[in-house]
Structures are given as structure tokens and as C-alpha cells.
């Protein structure tokens, strides 16, 4: 909006921009393009810039409007062309359509004499309120580094062809309101470019002429926070990228000036596409992170990314469980000292120990003295048995069979390029045959001591190829519990550590049923808040992409959730943050669906609900470098009627926001599960109490 306002500093430009957008949108509609991108302006922002540009260049007359009509439609065509071409490489088309169309106009319009260049500043705000402009200019003149500030502001203004300080100032404020990170990026990017020119003694006239320096700013915002998740690293990368822009400006300027063409945002377009291509082709995504789901705000991109990272870490699409029943010990972890080396480093060995850490009962001379010997081995996930090697005898204790390194082995195919392999199994004890489909948890074999196995143990590895002895791949176990001093700890998507006593999670039916929200289901709550009672009605929906969400009809709020049988958790919320749904989204952010008294489940929340807006404003500036505000979530089991078959379960969750380590606000909640559903929800929001009861 602010940008639009600023463009109206020159009335002609503003008007022409609006008309161009309208033409663009109408064209898109007439050509039957999908409504969603039309509505969010994907097809028309290039037209807007084209409209503004030619509105500034040319006098309003009949032929001008003819030109505007043609160029707007042309821009739409160009947009479609580049959008399709670049989408295949998952790249944005940025302002390339605008550039091409504008060059076409500049090169082609000269031929049509009726298109007269309008004199500068006609219909401009500056003609009527000159004090406003000169005033701001003199004001800035008093600042230190006034020259740099002028250049910065005018460069900002130049984005929409307003080469004056006031426009720049407005845009700067606009950016600041839209995003603190974008604002600091704009200054940071500009400063790098400026200093590069300054220290390498570049010709500033290139920058001053049409204030081409906005390329620094646009690139900084695009690569520092929009397409790339803003972080220390993204800021650092700008130190290398912005000088490229400077060099490109210089190079292209000498080339384009001969044709009489302005560069506009060409350097920005080239470098951003270049950089994104390089990023996308990396062998492994690490360090700098591309924004996966565009939130259209550097802040949201940043917070969402780091929140997701903290919450789900290395969550994998395909879930695997531990391949056994009960509690086993990780006797050798990843990169183990004994055999988990080189290409086979990402493997896990398991055995069973007693309380003193021994793996056998005295005297431990026979296989059957070993606790894990002959224990059932289960399938870690659904899949097909693709390879079985059987017939290798168990070794006597202490002996190894290097000739048959892997011993009796079973390979299960879970999907293309994902296999699990279980080794050193007992001879003639396979419960499945090659080609069988096995379900997660099915007993497939028994633990033995065949192959390179001095004492009974189970070797487990994930691999990308179907062979016995394939190279291992790093693959976390989706969910498991570790037990230490009789206390359970819940882990999600972690690699079990060497020495840990680990077991699978057994879901409790009552919990599973209570959070089993199936599409079409309706939930009604009677809410009591401040002595007033109200109702909240939710419905469960599922998107075409199989994402499930709760939708509150009254407040039009949406809360996306996942229930994978072990965990119930919310992923996103859109809508009214005063709604009961939002409170529920916070209160039941992550629920463990197995009953493990004493087990704690920790999670992180976005800080929005906990930190006051002014502090968040300041925090946004610091966010790419460090977080001084946090919001943590914890879930615990409080009461249960029957530990083995819980029917009535009281869950407690507590979340609190902290700023510089000091607690700011907290949300406590108690969820009562009874009759296989969420019976009662009590939320205490700082001092406020909200009680909700499920009604039919």
C-alpha cells in the first residue's frame, strides 16, 4: 500500500501502474488462468512496474494508452513464458518480464513519433509541494554520511522510478514495517555495494545515474532473507554476492549504455537466479538454507524454519522403528570403534543387558547364556523381503567368522532407495521368505551370532541399495524411548546413542482415539471464560495434499495438525489469534500418544503468542544472528485411572515465553481424556482461566 502511495508521488506513473495491473489481471482472466495466482498478483506485479515506468516516461494521450494496453498484455505473456520456463528449475521469474518489455518499449517506441516523452515532473507531487521534498532532502543533509544516505534513499525510490529522497524515505519505512530483517538487509546490502565502489575506487556516476544501486538492496533482501532463510550465514554470503552485483553493474553498464538501454534490475535478476541455481544443485543441503515453503516475509521464513528445525530436526518422510520388542542396548552406535567404520559407519548394534551392564548370565560360555540370543527380531517398517542369507552357523562365544562377515542377513525394501538390513541372525530361524511383504513389528527372524559376531547381537543398518553389505546411510529412528535410572525419555528422529537402553513406543488406545480427528468429524466445545460462556465448533478437513487441519467456522481459523499414531502435533496456524482454536493449538502443541508416566515431551513454539509486540520488533533485528526470546513447551502425564489400560488420562502441558532468560508469559493447560475423546480442556493464560467442555 505504501509502495502504491509513493508511486502516486507522480500521479501519471501511479495511474498508469494501476491501469497496467488491471489490464494484466483482465487478460489473465480472459485467458482462463487460475484464480489463485491472479488474486495474489503473481501475474501482474511486472505489469505494475511496466505501467509505472512508461507512465513516467510518456505523455498521457491516446497512443500512450494504446501502448499501455499492448505492453501490459505483452508483460503478462512474458510473465507466463518465464514463469513456465523457470518453474521447471524451481526458480522465480523475478522482474525479467518487466525488463524485457521495458527494453522493447525503449528500443521500439522511438519509431512511433506520436508517443511523446512527457516532460519530467509533470503531474508530480513535487510540483505542488516542493517544500515537502526539499525539506526532507535538507533534513537528511544534516545527517552524517549524507551522501550515502541520499544515494540509499534515492536508490530505494528508483525501484519505482521515484528518484527523490521522500519517496525513498517512505519506501524505507514501508520496508521497516513489512520486515525488520528486510530493512537491515537493505542497509547492509547497500553498504557493501557502496563500500565496494568506495574502496575499489569505482566510478560512482554509474550508481548515481538512474540510481542503479537498488540492485544491491533488492539482491540483499532476496538472497539474505526471502529466498534464503535469513541467518548469520545468509548475511555473510551477501559479502560475496553484492560485489558480484557491483561488478555486473559496471560490466553491463558499459555494454548496455552503447545501445542506450538502462540496466534497471538486470544485475539483480542475473545474480539471484545464478545464486539460487547454485544453491539448488548442491549435493547436500547444509549451511545456507533455501526457503522451502515461502511465507512471503523474511521474519516468517526465519522463525518458521528455525522453529521447524528445532521441533523436527532431521524428521524423515518414511518412519522406521527399532527392530525388536522390549528394551535393548545400543552396543555400538554410528561411527563405532569396533566395526562401524568407513562405508559402514552409520549402523547400529544392539544387545540386551542386565542392570549391571552384563550381556550374559554366568558363566557366559554358551550362546544361550546371552540375554539377546534367540530373541525375536522384528521388521522396522513395512516392506518387502528382498534378500535372505541363511545357513551360516552361530559362532562359539569369542569366535568370529570373517569369511561370512554379515552372517545370516535379511534385507527389507521399504521404498525405492530405502532398505533396512538386519544381520548376524540365527540360522534356520527366519520367519519370512524372499518376496514376502512384512508389516512393521512382525517377527521376521531371531537374534543369533553368525558372521563377524563374537557374541550374540543384532546389527541394523539402513541403506540405499538392496545388497547384503551395502554402504550405510544416515537415517534416524523415528520414535523411540530411552530408559535411564528407570525414567523414560522420548526421542523423535534421533540416532540412538551408543550405550543407550532403547525401546519402541507403544501407543495407548485412549490417547490415540482422543486425537484421532478424521476428516468430516465435528467437535463442539462449550467454553467458559471470564464468567461468560460461548461455543466453538470445529470441523476436520483434509487438503488435496493430505494435510489435515481443524477449521473453526466462527473465526475462520485453520490449525494444521499431524497424527502419525505415535505423536499428535500442530504444524501451522492461520487466522484469529484470539480464537479458542489458537489456544488449543498452543495448549496441545505436541502430544505423545503412548502412556509413559514420568516421560516428558518437549517442544518449541513460535514466540508470537508469548512476547509483546514491541520486544518482538526489536527481536526481529537480532533474529538472524541470535535469539534472545524463546517459547518452550512441555507435556507430561498427570493422572491416570489404570496404568495398563488407561481410560481416563489427565495431561498437563505448560509453555512459557522468555526474553533474555526472564519469563514473560505462560500458558498452562490440562487436557482430560475420557470416553476415548477430549472431554475437558482447561487453559490458564497468564491469569486468565478458560474452561472448555466437549459436547456432542
Amino acid at each position, binding site marked *: 500500500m505504501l509502495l502504491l502511495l509513493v508511486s502516486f508521488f507522480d500521479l501519471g506513473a501511479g495511474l498508469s501502474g494501476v491501469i497496467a495491473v488491471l489490464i494484466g489481471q483482465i487478460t489473465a482472466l480472459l485467458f482462463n488462468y487460475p484464480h489463485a495466482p491472479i488474486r495474489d498478483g503473481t501475474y501482474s506485479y511486472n505489469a505494475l512496474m511496466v505501467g509505472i515506468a512508461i507512465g513516467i516516461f510518456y505523455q498521457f494521450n491516446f497512443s500512450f494508452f494504446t501502448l499501455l494496453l499492448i505492453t501490459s498484455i505483452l508483460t503478462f505473456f512474458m510473465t507466463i513464458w518465464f514463469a513456465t520456463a523457470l518453474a521447471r528449475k524451481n526458480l522465480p521469474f523475478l522482474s525479467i518480464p518487466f525488463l524485457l518489455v521495458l527494453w522493447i518499449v525503449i528500443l521500439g517506441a522511438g519509431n512511433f513519433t506520436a508517443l511523446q516523452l512527457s516532460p519530467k515532473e509533470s503531474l508530480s507531487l513535487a510540483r505542488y509541494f516542493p517544500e515537502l521534498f526539499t525539506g526532507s532532502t535538507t533534513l537528511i543533509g544534516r545527517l552524517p554520511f549524507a551522501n550515502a544516505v541520499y544515494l540509499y534513499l534515492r536508490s530505494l525510490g528508483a525501484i519505482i522510478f521515484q528518484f527523490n529522497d521522500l519517496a525513498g524515505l517512505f519506501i524505507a519505512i514501508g520496508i521497516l514495517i513489512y520486515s525488520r530483517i528486510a530493512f537491515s538487509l537493505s542497509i547492509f546490502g547497500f553498504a557493501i555495494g557502496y563500500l565496494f565502489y568506495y574502496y575499489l575506487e569505482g566510478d560512482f556516476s554509474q550508481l548515481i545515474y538512474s540510481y542503479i544501486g537498488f540492485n544491491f538492496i533488492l539482491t540483499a533482501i532476496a538472497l539474505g532473507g526471502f529466498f534464503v532463510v535469513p541467518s548469520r550465514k545468509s548475511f555473510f554470503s551477501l559479502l560475496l554476492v553484492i560485489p558480484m552485483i557491483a561488478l555486473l553493474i559496471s560490466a553491463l553498464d558499459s555494454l548496455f549504455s552503447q545501445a542506450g538501454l538502462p540496466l534497471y534490475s538486470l544485475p539483480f535478476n542475473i545474480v539471484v537466479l545464478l545464486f539460487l541455481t547454485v544453491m539448488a544443485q548442491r549435493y547436500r543441503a547444509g549451511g545456507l538454507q533455501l526457503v522451502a515453503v515461502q511465507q512471503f516475509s523474511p521474519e516468517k521464513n526465519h522463525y518458521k524454519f528455525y522453529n521447524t528445525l528445532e521441533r523436527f530436526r532431521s524428521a524423515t518422510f518414511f518412519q522406521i522403528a527399532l527392530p*525388536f*520388542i*522390549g*528394551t*535393548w542396548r545400543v552396543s555400538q552406535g554410528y561411527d563405532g570403534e569396533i566395526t562401524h567404520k568407513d562405508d559402514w559407519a552409520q549402523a547400529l548394534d544392539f544387545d*540386551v543387558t*542386565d*542392570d549391571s551392564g552384563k550381556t550374559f*548370565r554366568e558363566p557366559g560360555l554358551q550362546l*544361550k547364556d546371552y*540375554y*539377546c540370543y*534367540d*530373541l*525375536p527380531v522384528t521388521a522396522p517398517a513395512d516392506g518387502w523381503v528382498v534378500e535372505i542369507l541363511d545357513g551360516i552357523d552361530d559362532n562359539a562365544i569369542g569366535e568370529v567368522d570373517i569369511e561370512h562377515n554379515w552372517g545370516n542377513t535379511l534385507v527389507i525394501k521399504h521404498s525405492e532407495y530405502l532398505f533396512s538390513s538386519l544381520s548376524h541372525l540365527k540360522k534356520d530361524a527366519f520367519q519370512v521368505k524372499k518376496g514376502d511383504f512384512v508389516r512393521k*513389528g512382525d*517377527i521376521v527372524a531371531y537374534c543369533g551370532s553368525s558372521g563377524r559376531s563374537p557374541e550374540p547381537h543384532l546389527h541394523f543398518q539402513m541403506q540405499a541399495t538392496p545388497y547384503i553389505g551395502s554402504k550405510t546411510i544416515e537415517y534416524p529412528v523415528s520414535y523411540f524411548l530411552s530408559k535411564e535410572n528407570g525414567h523414560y525419555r522420548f526421542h523423535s528422529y534421533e540416532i540412538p546413542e551408543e550405550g543407550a537402553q532403547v525401546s*519402541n513406543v*507403544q*501407543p495407548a*488406545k485412549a490417547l*490415540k482415539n482422543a486425537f484421532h480427528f478424521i476428516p468430516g468429524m465435528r467437535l463442539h466445545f462449550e467454553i467458559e471464560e471470564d464468567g461468560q460462556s460461548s461455543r466453538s465448533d470445529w470441523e476436520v478437513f483434509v487438503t488435496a495434499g493430505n494435510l489435515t487441519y481443524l477449521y473453526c467456522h466462527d473465526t475462520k481459523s485453520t490449525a494444521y495438525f499431524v497424527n502419525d499414531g505415535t505423536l499428535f502435533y500442530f504444524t501451522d496456524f492461520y487466522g484469529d489469534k484470539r480464537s479458542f482454536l489458537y489456544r488449543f493449538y498452543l495448549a496441545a502443541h505436541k502430544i505423545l500418544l503412548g502412556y509413559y508416566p514420568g516421560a516428558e515431551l518437549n517442544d518449541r513454539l513460535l514466540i508470537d503468542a508469548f512476547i509483546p509486540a514491541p520486544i518482538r520488533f526489536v527481536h526481529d533485528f537480532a533474529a538472524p544472528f541470535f535469539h534472545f526470546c524463546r517459547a518452550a513447551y512441555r507435556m507430561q502425564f498427570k493422572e491416570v485411572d*489404570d496404568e*495398563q*489400560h488407561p481410560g481416563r488420562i489427565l495431561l498437563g502441558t505448560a509453555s512459557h515465553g522468555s526474553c533474555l532468560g526472564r519469563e514473560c508469559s505462560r500458558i498452562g493447560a490440562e487436557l482430560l481424556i475420557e470416553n476415548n475423546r477430549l472431554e475437558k480442556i482447561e487453559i490458564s493464560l497468564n491469569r486468565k482461566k478458560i474452561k472448555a467442555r466437549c459436547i456432542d
Partner: protein
Amino acid sequence: MKEKEMEKKSYERPVIKPLNSGLMNKFGTRTEYTPVTHIDGVSVKSLIEEYGSPLFVFSERKIRENIRDAKRIFETRYPKVQFAWSYKTNYLNAICKIFHQEGSWAEVVSIFEYKKAIGNGVPPEKILFNGPDKTDDDLRISVKNDSLIHIDHLDELYRLIEIAEEMHKKPRVAIRVNMDTGVYPIWDRFGFNYENGQAWDAINKIMAGDKLNLIGLHCHIGTYMLTPSAYGIAASKMADLALGIRKRYQKSISYIDMGGGFASKNTLKGSYQLGTDAVPEISEYAEQIAGALLNAGFDTDELPYLYLETGRALIDDAGFLLGTVISNKRLSDGRRSTIMDFGVNILFTAFWYDHKVSPAQEFSRFTEDTVLYGPLCMNIDVIRENVTLPPLNAGDHVVVHFVGAYNITQSMQFIALRPNVVLIDLKGESHIIRKAESMDDVERNERIPAHLENFKL
């Protein structure tokens, strides 16, 4: 061990033995002459000095080891396992509490044991109440407490329905099922038979009446079972009932109680092999039960809990009886006999087992076949009809093994009073867990009618 070095070598009388040169029998000679001088690091001699002879000794370390072993063995084969300590096997409170500390519930078969469990602090809803003799009052108490009642016969079922109506409560119950597992004789005196439809009859009555909450199924196929596969058959039949109930009444059974009956390492009388060789490992029973239940076809979400009432196998080898030689005697047929200071009144299991007996002091390698008698002046008092032991002198000590199960609960004051029972804790400290009986203990409840007060001899 220092004590041992300092000890003077004891005198051993000479023995005359026929020399069987070159005639090796297939199994070698059963010699049991490794001396057992210490239990959990505490010397037998010092124990007897401190607490007298005879003396029952329990090893806390061994008990905990046993239950943890058993739990681990089952829990690594089946995901939901609950042990319940069988009070009748050994109801000394200290022993029970060790099991409760290890997470075991209580399994009782009378109101007496029920009250003991309550007294030990077991939450009543974690008590399994078995047995054919539960009076109306017993049932009322357990209904009130929400304990798990395992119904044994139809009369009990009818009475319990009446009590439930009268108390306006829906008791949580299981029925005891008996069945043919291929091991004979069939234990069909307890519970409802599977094959002839009695079990279904009881289930239908419970479900149709809707006064009782049928949440479990219980069986106990026998005792000292040497055939693990019988448990596999039993578990399959139990699972079949549970799945049938699910199908017919849409009710999931919460638990299947497989009872007890696992053998300990004792040697049964008449057994050809030693118990340690003949008796299956607990893992073999576990494999059978878990395999049968996991393969039965339960929904993963509705897998019933597996309850186990294992008694003997968890406590037998943790109990020792220390005793002292009273005298040696040559019998008329020339056999040697030794009279010990403990008899069948406190070692009841001597009727079933050939208990392993070890001397508690060093001796030479010469042994002789001996009859071990108890001190009671009664012909039945025989500890071992025939045991190969080194010659023992009066005052020498012996250790009887595998006495932890059933002796404490079945012993009596026949002819003699019962001795001290001590527990050696994990640190090697010994504690009396039941004091030796006094005259007062035995006579406290006796009453003398007035006309019998006085007499003249």
C-alpha cells in the same frame, strides 16, 4: 575366606567302598560334594552361630536377579507384561515386598493372603484374587476394593452377580479356564473347561448379565510343567477365547493371565536327570507364550497384557536351609545314615524333590551313599533316601538348596517349632525376616476348659 584358611583340618573317619574298576555307567556318579561355605559372601558357620540351626536363608540378590531376568525375558518377546507375585509360594512379607519393589503385583488365593497383600501396601486394584473358595464377604471386600476377581466356578459367578447388584458396582473379573494342553492329567478341577464349552457358557452368562466387567482370562495349566509347548497351546486357546469375545461382543479383553507352573531347577523324585539338566529355561516358556499371543491375530492396538503368576521359578533357588548333623548311624543293612536337625516339618518339599544337599565345610574326595533323616521321631521324616555325601561328623553343617518355594508356607510345628528365617541383603547384611517360634506363639490361641486345669500324677 580368611576364616577358611585359618580353620583346622577336620578329622574324617575312614570309609570302606567297593571298587568298581572300569565299569563306567552312562551318566557318571552323582556326586554333590562341592562344599558351599558361604551364601552371598556370608559364611554358613557365622550364620548358624548367630541365628541358630536349622536356619532358612534367603538371598535378596538372587530374588531380584530372578525377577529381573524373568521380566527381561518376557518383555523382550512380548510388549505388555505384568508379573504378579504368587503369595502361596512364599508369603513372608519381606519376600513379597522385594517382588513388589520390582514391580510385581500380588496374586492371592484366599482372604488371608489377600489381607497380607493389602497389609504389604499393594494397591487393591493390583491384586489378582484366584481360588475356588471366596466367601460372600471375601467377594464383597474385593468388589469394594476393585480388585481383579478370577471366577472359578458357576456358583461363584452367580453369587458375584448378586453381590454386584447389591453393591451397585460392576466388578472387574476374569474367568479361570482349564484346557487340554497335551499334558496329563489335565488340571480340570479349577475353572471352566475350554473344550467342552463351559468357558463360553460362563462368558456368555457374564456378557448377557452385564453385571460384571469381564476384562481378563486366566488359566493355570499345571505345576512344575516340563513341557513348554503346553504353554503355547494354552496361550493359543486363551487368545482364541479373547478374539471370540471381541468378535461376538465387541469387547476387547484387557489381559490374559497365563498363571504359573514354570519349573524350578529342583530335581523331582523319580526323575532320571537332575533338575538343572531336565528343566526348561524360562525363555522357552516365554517363547511359546509370546509366540502364540503375537501370532494369534490381535490388533496391534488391542494386544492384551500378559499377566504371569510365576512363583516357584522365581524364588526356589533364592532359598537355602542350613542345618547341622546330629549323629551318624549304620543301618541294619549296612547303609550309612545321617540324622540332621531339620525335618520334613520345615522341609515339606522333601516329599517331592531330591533336594540338593551340600556340605558346608571342606573335606576329602571320598564319598559314601547315605540316607539323610530328619530329627522327628516319626518314620516319614526322610530328607533324602539316598544321597552321595562325604562322611559328615556330628556338628558339621550342610546347605540344602532350592528350598525357597512352598516350604515357608507349608511348614508346620509338627514335633518341633519352626526356626529363624533370615534375608541377606544386597550389601551382605543379614536380617531376621521371621523369628524362630516360641512356646507362646504356638500356645497363644489355645484355651483350657476349667475342668482340665488341674491334674495329679
